[in-house]
């Protein structure tokens, strides 16, 4: 009885320590190799965040920074604990991807108390630029929401009687979900013939979106377009529609359902190319250079804008080929 237990115990400890050992930073090195930058990320549960973290790492290496990454698994309490742990090590800069606008503002206070300057990325946060943080850099989700409404409207003839839209939305309470929903509704108010006939949770997940879509189809609700908060949801919707023998595409006159979403994943781009996915309003993860530019500008004492907008574009059949390589 005793033996296997000891062996297993040993294995467990060795694995635990070994996994650590590979990562133990040589303490003296930190000071030698330039500045230390820590990145507190929302999580690594989808393509976008992984792509963004990789981009930051490449850029940091290129510029000679030492970058460490913490993923908060989309839990606000974990992010705050992460930031507490990070600033107690006194890094030179903190790059913060806020989980939500208000909650993560706490992290700013923590960093401020420890005199660690913060660059906010990904999403909005509550606080004053130049005081609570250096600057904010991210895509404009309201704009994306507006753009999605515009693109749906644009796919139909101007005299279309009604445009009935199914919305598959992201996780409730997330800054991007809120931004896209409000932008979409704001723009939609300008189009009297457009209305939302169903709004269900897609949770940024293919399976959840697919299940919701299947049930919406079965319920007999009529609709002409689907708006999705991420490509993964759009893929789910497409699968469900395909299974129900409904065509998706860009021509409502042929009875095709118009799908417009936010994203820029490889799968999404392929679907656009195949003509099944009408348009993608991108949300690019490729702005690490802007982040490090901001860090260097701040280090050299320059004054920065309070918000640096990351430019997004609309990808459709015409320009999809040139963006194919940037799919994440």
């Amino acid at each position, binding site marked *: 009885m005793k033996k296997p237990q000891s062996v297993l115990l040993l294995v467990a*400890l060795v*694995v635990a320590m070994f996994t650590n050992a590979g990562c133990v930073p040589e303490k003296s090195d930190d000071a030698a190799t330039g500045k230390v930058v820590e990145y507190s990320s929302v999580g690594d549960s989808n393509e976008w965040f992984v792509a963004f973290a990789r981009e930051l790492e490449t850029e940091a290496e290129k510029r000679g920074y030492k970058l460490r990454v913490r993923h908060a698994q989309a839990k606000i*309490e974990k992010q705050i604990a992460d930031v507490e742990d990070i600033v107690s090590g006194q890094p030179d800069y903190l790059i913060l991807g806020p989980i939500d606008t208000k909650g993560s503002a706490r992290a700013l206070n923590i960093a401020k108390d420890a005199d660690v300057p913060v660059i906010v990325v990904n999403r909005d946060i509550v606080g004053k630029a130049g005081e609570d943080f250096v600057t904010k850099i991210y895509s404009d989700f309201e704009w994306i929401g507006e753009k999605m409404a515009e693109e749906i409207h644009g796919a139909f003839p101007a005299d279309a009687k009604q445009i009935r839209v199914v919305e598959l939305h992201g996780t409730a309470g997330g800054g991007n979900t809120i931004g896209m929903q409000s932008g979409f509704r704001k723009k939609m108010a300008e189009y009297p013939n457009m209305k939302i006939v169903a709004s269900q949770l897609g949770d940024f997940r293919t399976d959840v979106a697919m299940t919701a879509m299947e049930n919406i189809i079965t319920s007999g609700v009529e609709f002409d377009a689907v708006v999705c908060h991420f490509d993964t949801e759009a893929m789910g919707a497409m699968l469900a529609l395909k299974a129900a023998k409904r065509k998706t595409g860009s021509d409502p006159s042929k009875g095709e359902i118009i799908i417009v979403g936010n994203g820029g994943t490889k799968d999404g781009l392929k679907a656009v190319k195949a003509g099944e996915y009408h348009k993608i309003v991108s949300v690019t993860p490729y702005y690490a250079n802007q982040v490090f530019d901001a860090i260097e500008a701040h280090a050299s004492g320059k004054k920065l804008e309070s918000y640096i907008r990351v430019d997004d574009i609309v990808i459709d059949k015409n320009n999809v080929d040139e963006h194919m390589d940037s799919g994440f």
Partner: protein
Amino acid sequence: MKADATSIKSHAASWIRSQGPLITLVVLLIFAVMRVPGFRSAVNITNIGKQVSMTGVLAIGMAFVILSGGIDLSVGSIAALAALLAARCSGEFFLAPILIPLAAGVTAGAMNGVLITRVKIPPFTATLAMMLGVRGLVFILAGKTAVVSGVSGQWFSKIAWGKWMGVPYAAMIFAGILGVAIVISRYTGFGRSVYAVGGNEEAANMMGLRVTRCKMKVYMISGACAAIGGMMLASRVTSVRPDIAVGWELTAIAAVVISGISLVGGIGKIGHVLYGVLILGVIPNIINRLTERQTTYANHLITGMLLLAVVLIQSRIAKKHNTH
């Protein structure tokens, strides 16, 4: 008529056997102090104190429930409800962000109690239902957007962020509640009847203990503790999203079990919850300080492995001569 024949040696042995959680914690701390850079710093110790206090409070309530032979899966949802209400009420009258969530937590706990003692649904099922139901309620109350609490700097945010002589209030709240819990479990009739009910419910009933009342109280305490944890969370994070505190019930259960309280009921000491809570709190801190590029999966892997080591050490310490 014999077992009183004990020598010093067997005394020591039985002490060690009952102190598995403490020994494990000490081993972990020695490892951390020696191998983990920056672990010893005062800032870090305070941080750990702040970080563990919320789930720590939950674990105290959970300990009562588990000692009584039950389980409470709804604490994460109740904490979320309390956090949400605290955030919502922080602009209302004085003490509202404390009283209202507390009332909600106790009510939810009482509902658990009623489902279990009156409707006679097994605790696992009843609290699972409450876990789902309360979480749904939180989502509905939250509406489409996150609910936001008052401005930082307000007295309410002091709960999680204030300090007195370097000791965070949050840690003091946890310690205070733990102290009260120890006194309750040791020096009150209710506290002892929890053990009796958990040890043998039918017997407790026949001995004339008020089993139903005891269980009601236990779940209400758990609800109250969950609510306090939720309030501390609200104060800590300022804004409350409806998916907050998901999975806290598992953290609390794990902390309780690691502290040597058996899920069978009736066995273990409330005070030992401190060790379980600290073990679970130190592990992520160590991981955070050791890893260069911390991916979620590496994080989970190390957590899993360390937890495994912890339970193996404990089962090993506790084993000797346990024939059953």
